[in-house]
């Protein structure tokens, strides 16, 4: 019996060891399987990582930068072997057709000598580190609540365009009346910079609304007239050191709209401030309580709203200096321009 019991014990132990072996082998297989699955899943999900709030808040409004390198534009009836470049549609009071024939229209770099040497003097327009920019912006940053705003902007004024990035441009055109060429007019702008300009557009209840800032900075604008062959030019009207800052509209508080009415005439409008104040006194002033929202909005508009400035250092006509001109802090509170057909 003792022998039998001992034999049973051994058998049990053998079975136990065998069981353990199978268990460990099963465990090993499972571990390898799991490890392989982990490897697989690591690879499969490595490019599908969830973006956290921190990641998302790092994303800046990215747009498309635009720079023109070595740019020249030159067109007209007296360049590139001639041709026709006409604008029609005007009539004299006698009913004769007036045709504006564009002899030359050029955009080129410094040294283009009023267009005479345009094609050999290219210009970079926009800087790589401060380009023209096309972007969709968050409206809440620019005074348009909860809407996407399309923005096209020129280089900013900080680190703005350098001398080699400021084009010369100009136009020479002739006036033809009933087929006879009468006079040639020329206009040349030197070293033009529009840094800081932008246009913003957004949708406002079924129509396009916008806001516009136009900055023009040039050391010289010239106008003069010549005979019909472009010779014997008369005295020049010179505007030296011209700085124009034009701001139209202020977000959705004062939107700018461009529409065509149902008679086929266009209307350009800078939104009115009428109705912005809930309580108006007898002289037209706002008599809302100083702490009310409409009063605060109006006060903010008057203090830091859009304003336009013009500064011309010298106006010289035929060599005579007319002195300087300054217009500053001009705030356009309503503007409507409407076309009317004369026929």
């Amino acid at each position: 019996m003792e022998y039998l019991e001992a034999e049973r014990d051994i058998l049990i132990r053998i079975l136990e060891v065998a069981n353990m072996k199978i268990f460990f082998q099963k465990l090993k297989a499972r571990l390898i399987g799991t490890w392989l699955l982990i490897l697989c899943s690591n690879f499969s999900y490595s490019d599908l990582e969830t973006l956290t709030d921190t990641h998302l808040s790092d994303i800046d409004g990215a747009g498309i930068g635009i720079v023109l390198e070595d740019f020249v534009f030159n067109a007209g009836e007296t360049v590139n072997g001639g041709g026709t470049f006409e604008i029609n549609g005007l009539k004299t009071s006698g009913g004769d057709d007036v045709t504006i024939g564009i002899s030359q229209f050029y955009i080129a770099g410094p040294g283009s000598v009023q267009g005479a040497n345009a094609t050999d003097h290219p210009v970079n327009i926009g800087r790589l580190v401060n380009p023209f920019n096309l972007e969709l912006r968050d409206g809440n940053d620019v005074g348009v609540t909860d809407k996407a705003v399309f923005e096209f902007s020129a280089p900013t004024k900080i680190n703005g365009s350098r001398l080699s990035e400021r084009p010369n441009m100009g136009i020479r055109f002739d006036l033809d009346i009933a087929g006879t060429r009468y006079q040639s007019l020329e206009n040349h702008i030197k070293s033009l910079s529009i840094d800081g300009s932008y246009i913003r557009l957004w949708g406002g209840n079924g129509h396009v609304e916008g806001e516009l800032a136009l900055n023009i900075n040039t050391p010289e604008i010239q106008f003069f007239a010549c005979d019909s062959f472009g010779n014997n030019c008369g005295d020049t009207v010179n505007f030296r050191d011209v700085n124009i800052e034009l701001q139209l509209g202020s977000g959705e508080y004062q939107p700018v709209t461009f529409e065509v009415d149902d008679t086929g005439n266009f209307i350009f409008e800078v939104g009115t401030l009428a109705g912005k104040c809930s309580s108006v006194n007898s002289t037209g002033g706002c008599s809302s309580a100083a702490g009310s929202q409409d009063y605060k909005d109006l006060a903010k508009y008057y203090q830091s709203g859009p304003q336009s400035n013009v500064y011309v250092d010298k106006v010289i006509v035929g060599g005579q200096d007319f002195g300087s001109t300054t217009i500053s802090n001009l705030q356009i509170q309503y503007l409507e321009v409407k076309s009317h057909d004369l026929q």
Partner: protein
Amino acid sequence: MIKIIIIALSALYLPCSMALEPLGEEELQQVLGQGGVYLSGDITINEAGGPLNVETDTSNPGVWKDSCTTSSTNVRCGARIAVNAGDGDSSGWLVLDNIRGRFSFEGMTLTTRTINSGFDNNFDPTNTAHDPNDAEYGEDGVAFNRDVLEIGLPYTIKYSNVSFTLANSNFARPTDTEVNSQGQVIAEFAQTDILSVKIDGDVSLRGNLLLFPTGNP
């Protein structure tokens, strides 16, 4: 059995890891793109006629119905783009009308380029006297050091009898009218032409248009 499981798992493992093997920087650097694309183009729009969009005449589908030579004053000649930027029915249309002619160009290129030098302020190539440390003369290209998409503008664009008219109109199309509930016409089509432009000849358009992402993507 265990061996079979391991082999089966290995077989599973291999394809899923191979399909998603990340490309290293060094491997990526070996990849060379094409040298870019060279484009030439020629487009003719309604040079001697055009579809006239006459819907009422069922016997004639409205194509080539009238002479549309450049001297023709038929309001339906030429292509027309009408945009309404106003408040629905009570507003009119900004129109680019009577678009016709032929444009052609050769030598437009499309390529990518790495910019890491140049773009200084030295517009006079003979002037080497400037101070390279002067911020005004600094090389933007060094600071930029990125890839851009470069569109090489064609040297010359040829225009043959290209014309278009800028106008405003009360309806989108010249065939449109406003009809009241009794079927009477209460408003005819009206259009105010602002100006017409006609170009025939060559225009120089030189340089490169560089496009690149801005901001901090």
